[in-house]
Structure formats: structure tokens, C-alpha cells
């Protein structure tokens, strides 16, 4: 049997987990979450600035480029706590854009852009396309070499998180028959290129990006030799951080439901005493603990060739199962209130669906695992 991964936990992870648990709880109470859902920008710039001051945006950026030189393993506890508080903002998108540059950028690009990201300039990645294939190298948006060494782009990207706030966009295209990554800034985009999408998770800002008519200088191309490997890396990194957000959300959703089950009374009894509710909550809880174990194994083993991929896919598949189940039951176990806008169960259920739809759901990753393991 292949090595499936193991738990390891660094002092940095522990310290960040503690700080993030406190910060996210204070800065993202559910009333704030709901207020920001109605806000066009969708997040609080003051909180974003605080995260920058805490150094969170540079956690996984090398010291030479203004970061603290840790890895995604240390980002995981941050995102887990953000997910737990349904926090909004471009943190994950910016972290992934930095990963794209670290894994696939030229030295000049790293020097120019990474310090800005570490300092708190928002960025995003644009991978998905209307064909909705989750494979990272299925790309039909194109770049063509034109006059004066400029690249002309065409095609459309969809479900681009945080494109509206981003000052840098890393876009997957096809160039000379191979995958490539191009860096764009908002100034490169013609009016109307970005359209805000209506998405199930209303804490999130997601955009469709039309590339037709966009031209950029060739030095915006990330290292072409590493584009394939970078896309693969981004796919796994995105799934790792999604799993972190989902595990945090699962915990919160279970706690939220338990509060109701401990207080609501029917037939003269607190409803949590009924096994028809109690036992499914135990199922939700054991699935949560398993998902969290997978998550911290994936974080620890992320950089290990082979094992990292197995552990990440297991983590995302387990998190999808756990979050979906916990949130689905949460709606049901709140009765009529569960059917309302005001009940938080819907927030968790929507966020779980969003994550399942991004970068592959449980079935997708389990199919990949069958190929990796058998």
C-alpha cells in the first residue's frame, strides 16, 4: 500500500491556530457575515488590512519576497478558522495567486509581485471555464502571439473568486498548444470584462471574466516550462484550502445545531434527547473528526511527492461528505425555523455546496484516488 500520510503539527501551526481562532471569532460574528452578504465589495477592508498587519498574507511566501517563509501547512489553520466563522474576503484567492507565482513565476515576476501580495494587495486565480471540467489542464481560453510581441487573449473564465477586489489575476490559457498562465491587472481589462455572478454562497464574490480583446506584453507570461506543474499544484492547493474552510464550517455547523437541540422543547422534552436527532448528530460529529484528521494530514504531507496528492484528495472528499451531511441535517433539525433565511443552517449548506462545486467534489476526488491507489 502507498503511504497515505500522517499527522504532524508544527509550533507555527499551533500558534497561528490559536491566534486565528480568536481573531476570526471577534472579527466575523454572524451578524457581520450577514451584513457583508448585502455589501457590494463583500468584505471589510479594515479587517483585510488587519490580516495584512498580522502577516497572514505572507505566511507561505518566501522571506526573500517579503513573506515569513512558512508553507501552506501553516495557512491551513488560518483558513479553517475563517471557514468556521463564515468569514468573507480574498484571503484564499490571494494565497493561491501567490502560490501560482511561487511555483510558476519568473524571477522578475516574483520580485515584482510577491512582496505586494505579502503586503496585502488582493489577487486571484482564474482557472474554471464554461465547460465546468474540474481537470486543471482542460483549458480552451487562448493566448495568441501577435504584433510587437504582445499576447492576445480570448475565451471566458467562470467562477473566478474575488476577481473584483483583485489587483492581480493569474489566468490559465492555452498557448502554442500547451497550458500557460498569464498575469493580468484590472487595467488590462476592457469595461464589462468582469461580470459578477449570482452564486449560492452569498458570502462570496465570484465573477465571470471575458478575455476577448485583452492584450498584454509577453513578459506577463509565467514560466511556460512550468505551467503544467503549476496548474497541478494550484489544483491541489485550492483543494487543501477548501478542505480547511469546510472542516471549520462543519465544526461550527454542528455546534450551531447542538445549541438548538439543547434548548428547543417539544412534547415536554428537550429535542436533543430524541435519538432520531441525537444519533445523526453523532454521525455528523464522527465524520467531522475524521475529516479534520484528513485535513491536518494533508497539510503536513502536502509537499511530499505522491503522498501529498493522496492526502489532499482524501481531505477534500472527506470534508465534502462531512460538511454536506452536517449542514443538510442542520436545516432539518431546526424544523420550520430551519427553512428560514434567518437560520444559519442555510449559510453553512450553501457554503458546502459552493466548495463541492469548486475544484472537484467528493465523487471526483474518490475517482482520482481509485486511480492513485489501485
Amino acid at each position: 500500500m502507498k503511504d497515505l500520510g500522517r499527522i504532524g503539527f508544527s509550533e507555527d501551526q499551533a500558534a497561528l491556530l490559536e491566534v486565528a481562532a480568536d481573531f476570526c471569532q471577534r472579527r466575523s460574528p454572524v451578524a457581520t457575515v450577514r451584513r457583508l452578504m448585502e455589501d457590494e465589495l463583500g468584505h471589510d477592508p479594515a479587517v483585510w488590512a488587519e490580516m495584512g498587519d498580522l502577516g497572514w498574507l505572507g505566511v507561505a511566501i518566501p522571506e526573500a519576497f517579503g513573506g515569513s517563509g512558512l508553507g501552506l501547512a501553516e495557512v491551513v489553520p488560518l483558513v479553517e478558522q475563517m471557514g468556521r466563522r463564515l468569514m468573507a474576503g480574498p484571503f484564499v484567492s490571494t494565497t493561491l495567486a501567490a502560490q501560482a507565482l511561487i511555483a510558476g513565476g519568473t524571477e522578475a515576476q516574483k520580485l515584482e509581485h510577491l512582496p505586494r501580495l505579502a503586503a496585502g494587495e488582493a489577487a486571484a486565480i482564474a482557472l474554471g471555464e464554461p465547460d465546468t471540467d474540474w481537470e486543471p489542464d482542460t483549458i480552451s481560453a487562448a493566448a495568441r502571439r501577435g504584433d510587437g510581441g504582445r499576447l492576445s487573449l480570448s475565451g471566458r473564465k467562470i467562477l473566478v473568486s474575488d476577481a473584483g477586489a483583485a489587483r492581480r489575476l493569474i489566468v490559465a490559457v492555452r498557448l502554442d498548444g500547451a497550458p500557460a498562465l498569464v498575469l493580468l491587472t484590472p487595467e488590462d481589462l476592457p469595461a464589462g470584462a468582469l461580470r459578477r455572478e449570482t452564486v449560492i454562497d452569498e458570502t462570496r464574490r465570484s465573477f465571470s471574466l471575458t478575455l476577448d480583446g485583452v492584450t498584454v506584453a509577453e513578459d506577463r507570461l509565467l514560466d511556460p516550462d512550468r505551467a503544467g506543474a503549476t496548474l497541478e499544484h494550484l489544483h491541489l492547493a485550492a483543494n487543501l484550502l477548501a478542505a480547511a474552510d469546510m472542516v471549520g464550517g462543519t465544526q461550527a455547523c454542528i455546534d450551531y445545531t447542538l445549541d438548538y437541540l439543547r434548548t428547543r422543547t417539544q412534547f415536554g422534552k428537550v429535542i436533543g434527547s430524541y435519538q432520531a436527532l441525537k444519533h445523526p448528530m453523532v454521525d455528523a460529529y464522527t465524520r467531522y473528526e475524521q475529516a479534520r484528521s484528513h485535513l491536518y494530514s494533508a497539510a503536513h504531507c502536502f509537499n511530499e511527492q505522491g503522498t501529498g496528492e493522496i492526502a489532499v484528495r482524501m481531505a477534500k472528499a472527506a470534508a465534502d461528505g462531512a460538511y454536506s451531511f452536517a449542514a443538510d441535517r442542520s436545516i432539518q433539525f431546526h424544523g420550520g425555523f430551519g427553512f428560514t433565511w434567518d437560520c444559519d443552517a442555510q449559510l453553512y449548506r450553501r457554503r458546502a455546496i459552493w466548495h463541492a462545486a469548486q475544484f472537484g467534489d467528493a465523487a471526483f476526488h474518490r475517482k482520482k484516488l481509485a486511480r492513485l491507489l489501485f
Partner: protein
Amino acid sequence: MSTVDPKDLAAFAEQADAWFAENVVRDPGFMLPLTFMEVGTDKQFHFLRDWQNKVWEAGYLGAAWPKAYGGGGLPQAFQSAATRAMRKHHGPIMLNAIGINWAGPLILEMGTEAQKAAYLKGILSAEDIWCQGFSEPGHGSDLGSAQTRAVRHGDHYVVNGSKIWTTLGRYARYMILLARTDPSTERKYDGLSFFLMPMKAPGIETVPIRKLTGEHGFTQTFFTDAKAPADGLVGPEGGGWKVAMRTLEYERGARGGQAGGYVSVGANAFDVFDLARRTQRGGQPVLEDPLVADEMVGFLMEIQALTLNGQRTQVPELVADRPQGIPLASKLMGTEMSRRLNDFAVRLTGARGAYYVDEPDAVDNGLWARNYLNAFSATIGGGTSQIQANIVGEHVLGLPKS
């Protein structure tokens, strides 16, 4: 206890490895039981008793128990190394499970000095086999309602009533017995007392019960004016419920202190994976069926999660929210997975799933079906899964009692 010198530990582990490599008998010429709950023949019993004795004499059982009581007086890491070596070389199970895993640790923690001196060494050497008299025909999950009576007469109690599902009942020299010393208490729990009870005494009769697999393993135990010595009480008279609950914590692995080794060798997801890889259906490897493949991946994820859960409990920061959660839920998670996994294994064998043990055309001698049927021993024994779910719901999730 002293700190561990890595060099000593490595040398010990190496010795253990060599010892098990040399001494494990893989095939004694008859079928061995999968768990201590399935010891059905005298041949199996004597073989396993000799084996445990040999392991103990070599220093690989009870290595972390105090020397004064037959242990090795070493840090726990040494016993863990010995157990790993045992597993690596597929050593047979430890027979005296109730003694080494729960009666023994309980006596170590709560017993009197005289009780420790009298019982612990015999538990390790397997000279004294132990059984457990908790369940009764009328009261299983509702253990607190147990009715077997114990009435004080001078230096002993007179016991009347019956216990059931007594694992190793036919072979046991001692029983941990939960009996009612006072039927008039307001709370049913307050009338119970906990005894270390001799089994080879007048007035005790053990009647074998046949299991769903057709084999034997447990008994019904009848008490007719049997004598329980008063110095065999653990805790005060009327304080038996608390002692019984502590016993169950040891039994369910929610509390450490066991003597070591393992007491069951059920198939795990990797064994079933091996079965899947060598199974064909319609001329195709069965794993090429996407439904089968997906189910197999699910089990590999699950067994990996349980392994990782165990590792995570060693990282306090990662279990801070509910420190008792994983320990209290592990019996439920592990035994339920095992039951579903063995069911999956039987289904993997397709049409041959219809065969049973000893049929020459059966896959692996029909053992998968037997594994599956036996898997219920763990989802029922030691507290059913439904009772485990109540415990997790109430003690971990804070929900009110059902």
C-alpha cells in the same frame, strides 16, 4: 517511571522483533479464533494460553506493569514496541483479554494491595483466566438494573441469580461480577457492588451458548448460593456502579493502562483491498467496476481517518475543543467500520459469497462470511453501537439523556 533512553528502547524493539520472528506459530494445524470472544474448543484454549504465557515469560506482555506484580516495570513505549513486533509477525491473540485489558488495569488502579498481589501476575501469565459477569438475561444495555443478588454473611456474600453472554465463562478462574447488595435503594445504581469472584466454587454452573457462527465462545452462568469472599469487593459495598463504569472505560479503550498485545485479529481495510485486487468478475478485475472501486476508496479513507484520529489525540492543540471526543467515539467508529467492511468483503466474492467455512470452492476458505458474522461481537459486546452513540451524544456533544 524513568524516562526512555532511545538506545535501550531500540535494542528492546530489536530483541522483540527477533523473538516474535522465531516464536510465532502461524499454523497450529487447526483454525484459531479471530478474537478472545470466539474461543470455542479446548485445543484453541490451551494453545492460546500457552502462547500468552510464553510471551509474558519473554517479557513482551505487561512490560509496563509494575515488577512487583509480574510486570516488567518499563515505560509504556517498551510495551508498545513489543506489541508492534507481535503484530508484524502475526502473533496469535492474547487469550486473557478481560484480565489484561480491563480487570487488570482496574485492580491496578482501584484494588487493595492484597488484591494486586493475589491477581495481577496470574492475569499476565494466563494461569488465571478472567471473565466478566455484567450482563443478565433481562438487563444488558440497562446494566444499572442488574438483579443478581449478593447477601452478606460474615466474611463472604452469598450470590444467587444468573449472568449471560459470559465470554470465556467455561475457562475462567475468576469473574468481575456486578451484583445487587441492596435492592431497596432509591437510585438503582446505589444498590450495586463489584466483586472479584472465584468461579471454581460450589454453586456456579456455566452453560455454553452457541453463537451465530455455529461455534461456542460464551456461556450463561448460574449462581446458586455461591460464595463471594468479602475481601474481593472492589470499592465499597454499594459503590459498584462507579467501578463498573471505570471498567467499561478500560474495556472500550477510552482509558489506557492495558497490559499490551492485542485480543483480536479482524481483517482491516488493507486485507480487504488485497482481496479486491485478486478478485475477478466476468473476466475483469472487480476493481474496474467503478461502484466497487468507489466503495473500496471509501473504506481506505475511513481506515486512514481512524489511524490519523489516533495520531491526532497525541497533539493536544488539535483536540482542544473536545479532548474526550475521539477516545469516546473510537469504539463506535472502529467497530461499525469493521462490520460494514466485512459485509463489503463478502459482497466482493460475488456468487461465492454463498459458501461458508471449509467449502473447498469458497474464497479464502469462507472466512469472510465468518468475519462478517463475528464482527457483530464488537458492535454488540462491550456496549452496543446504539449505546455508544448515546454516550457520545451525551458526554461529548452535551445533549440531554434520552
